[in-house]
């Protein structure tokens, strides 16, 4: 009786510690089996990743365990877990995230079997990552807004400066979103650095909100809370296909595009399975699965036929921007964006 409180706390701490060590010790034995499973952080949205990995498991018999994270969260975790990686692959997400991870020593090199069929600009020169799809920027505009204001969907970056859009634009915040940095790269490629930031300063007065995720503004535009915004095509088509009254358009000055990539983590515990996943990602199969399941990336393999006309890039002015240049300039542009555009 006398020791009741003591016993209680003892039991409590034993519980915590015992579960800690038992479950901690379990990990390596699970991870030791080769070929059976591969653990993945997916930046690709869950609904797409589920379909893609189902096809992969059907093809190879390898089971995929995955968690979906935003690109920033995924990289922050990979860096923090460097000493003892919890996953074998990173799946999806823009190539500049991979370039930033390479600098931190997060990725291992592996050149997939059919990598030479993927154009060189869609993969890492050193073999750290391989492109699995490309996604250009586009404008997404609410049809009701256009009808009410007697406007046509914007076809130039300068159309967005129209006072009709005052307090009506939603687009991503450069500090959190790859979509936003892509927007800055495009503007710099078109206008040059100083002019690009001067333009964004003017644009700022039409912006209602900078959202934290790249697709965050799409729903407000779909429901009429906002008028228009700049998105990756995959997010724009996704919401349009749900049935909202929206128009997707491209600026005549052109857009850059993001390369969605995949890569193996340094110290991966299921290395063979991870390599199989990368081989599969570089094969025609992945592209075919994406086309069949209407996952709106443009496959990196030129020999995969795209059926969705919205993904037909022959009418779109695509601007090249090298991954190394993006990686180099990213921090500088983001800081300048904070200092000059949102803080004015």
């Amino acid at each position: 009786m006398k020791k009741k409180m003591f016993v209680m706390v003892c039991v409590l701490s034993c519980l915590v510690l015992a579960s800690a060590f038992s479950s901690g010790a379990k990990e390596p034995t699970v991870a030791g089996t080769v070929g059976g499973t591969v653990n993945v952080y997916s930046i690709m949205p869950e609904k797409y990743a589920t379909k893609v990995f189902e096809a992969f498991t059907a093809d190879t018999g390898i089971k995929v365990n995955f968690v979906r994270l935003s690109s920033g969260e995924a990289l922050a975790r990979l860096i923090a877990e460097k000493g003892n990686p919890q996953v074998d692959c990173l799946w999806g997400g823009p190539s500049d995230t991979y370039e930033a991870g390479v600098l931190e020593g997060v990725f291992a090199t592996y050149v997939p079997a059919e990598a030479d069929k993927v154009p060189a600009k869609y993969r890492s020169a050193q073999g750290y990552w391989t492109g699995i799809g490309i996604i250009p920027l586009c404008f997404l505009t609410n049809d009701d807004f256009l009808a009410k204001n007697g406007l046509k969907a914007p076809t130039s970056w300068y159309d967005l400066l129209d006072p009709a859009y005052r307090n009506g634009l939603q687009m991503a915040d450069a500090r959190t979103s790859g979509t936003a940095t892509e927007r800055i790269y495009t503007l710099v490629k078109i206008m040059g650095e100083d002019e690009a930031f001067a333009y964004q300063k003017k644009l700022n007065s039409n912006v209602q909100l900078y959202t934290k995720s790249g697709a965050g503004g799409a729903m407000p535009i779909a429901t009429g809370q906002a008028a228009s915004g700049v998105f990756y095509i995959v997010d724009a088509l996704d919401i349009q296909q749900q049935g909202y009254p929206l128009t997707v358009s491209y600026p005549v000055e052109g857009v850059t595009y993001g390369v969605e990539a995949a890569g193996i983590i340094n110290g991966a515990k299921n290395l063979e399975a991870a390599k199989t996943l990368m081989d599969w990602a570089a094969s025609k199969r992945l592209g075919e699965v994406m086309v069949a399941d209407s996952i709106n990336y443009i496959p990196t393999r030129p020999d995969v036929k795209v059926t969705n006309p919205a993904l037909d890039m022959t009418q779109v002015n695509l601007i090249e921007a090298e991954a190394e240049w993006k990686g180099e300039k990213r921090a500088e542009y983001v800081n300048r964006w904070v200092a000059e555009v949102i803080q004015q």
Partner: protein
Amino acid sequence: MAEGYRGMKKQRFVLLKKDPALFSTLVIIWVLFGIFIFLPVFRLLLAAFVVDGKPSFANLAAVMKTSYNIRALYGSLLLATTVGISGTVLGYIFALAVTRTTLPRWGKNILSAITILPLISPPFTSSISLTLALGPNGMLLQLFGIENFTIYGFWGTWLSETLTYFPIAFMVIEAILNTMSANLDDAALSLGSTKWRLFRTVTVPLSLPGIANSFLLVFGASLADFATPLILGGHSFPVLPTEAYLLITGLFDLKGGASLSFLLLVPALIVFLMQRLVLGRKSFVSVTGKSGARTVFSGLPVSLSVIIGIVCTIVSAFVIYLYAIILWGSFVKVWSVNNTFTWEHYAYVFQHGKKAILDTLAIALVSTVLGSILGIVIGYVTQRKTFPGKRFFEFGSLLNYALPGTVVGIAYIIAFNQRPLLLTGTMTILVAAYVFRYYATGIRAVSASLEQIDPALEEASLSLGAGSVRTFTHVTIPLIMPAVLSGTRYLFIHCMTAISATIFLVSVHWTLLTTRILESMTELQFSQASAFSIVLILIVFAGDAIMRGLIKLSSMKFHQSVREVAHHE
């Protein structure tokens, strides 16, 4: 120096001899603190303030160079203070309505249910229905013909956080108002006091521990909240936790983000000390062994009742409206475009979300049990016992609560990703993150409740020959049970719905409902997210109903045990 050390050693020795149960309890709790609070924070401190092997403020100086982050510090303080005040006031008003008005039973039940709605849904869910109501072209704005109202910024964030966190204040204050002795009301009135005077000079002063504790909790919750400002803050109103999150996940600057987060500890420490100063010297004892027959509380002055009625009606209507949007959203095919009724989102939830639901339940149940036990023990020893290092012990126990969750999450990964403490990817790391963060409410509720209870009750038990453990289990615990259970309720709710720290701790083996909701949100599946939210809310409601039943039971027992003790005395 040596003298002081010997002195301390002697003190410890005395403690060991005089109260061995307390001594061993303290040792065990210190070890747990060491592993789950100090180790992660220490590892993070190393990351933030050690550059090239030397202590340095270079990382902090670098992030504080931009005036944007200074504005964020100011924004955080302004927001936390205003939310702390408005949340506590609103919580007090609701607590009065439930404990002191002649509102019929069902009316009180509805009010209590409404107050937990904002608590039991993840913060971003209500933020999003708030933007649908009050955002650009929002439904409410159109209804009232208001133009040029911008929700993004201070006011939107303040409104959303007040609605989200006033239930914490409500829970703490309701427990206090319930356990207050009604005899004081009788005494005051029979001595000729008016009801106003009674309210001003008896009820309010006696509830000060509850007010101070709930201010501390709401202030802390708002200070550490990153999700609400992330959605509603916009770029004109930066706050520190959000900026730290953006630094870590956006610019991959872990060191900068970590040092920015440590800045948050300064205001947390100041409020903690202020609370000590305010409450330290006064006595709030109203539950003694000398009470007579239990009588009912006297009512409130009419004017106050009217104000309370108006405020409660408006706030309740608004909260119901916000959640009606979510409920409606979960049953329509495509939100606001194709409004045909469908069950398909619920089918999806139970087909693809089953693992998340079961994982969440398991983690929440384990965390609630462990966290409650720890909360009681810590609350008790800090309130009733004296021992060396007590203030540090008390503040240390609340450290994880004061730090932004995302930072705690990162610190946990860094600290627990190596042998012998290899916890990443396990259930333990999620449980530990929840327990050592959200048991704070339990601790505060217990210590606030103990402030009210005359130590003479325990002394009587001791002098009658019961040991300190028997006294604790047979006298103290029954007396503080209502407060303990309200802390437990909050712990359970938070374990079901919180997201900040766990965003970095979910793994391929353990996933949570809240991260699934956030995922559905980012995938723009608003209806799916709504269905997930409704399922989560129903589960928590069920769990909460059970706990409320227990509270009622223990509240009856409480008044019974007060009488019994009084009788024995």
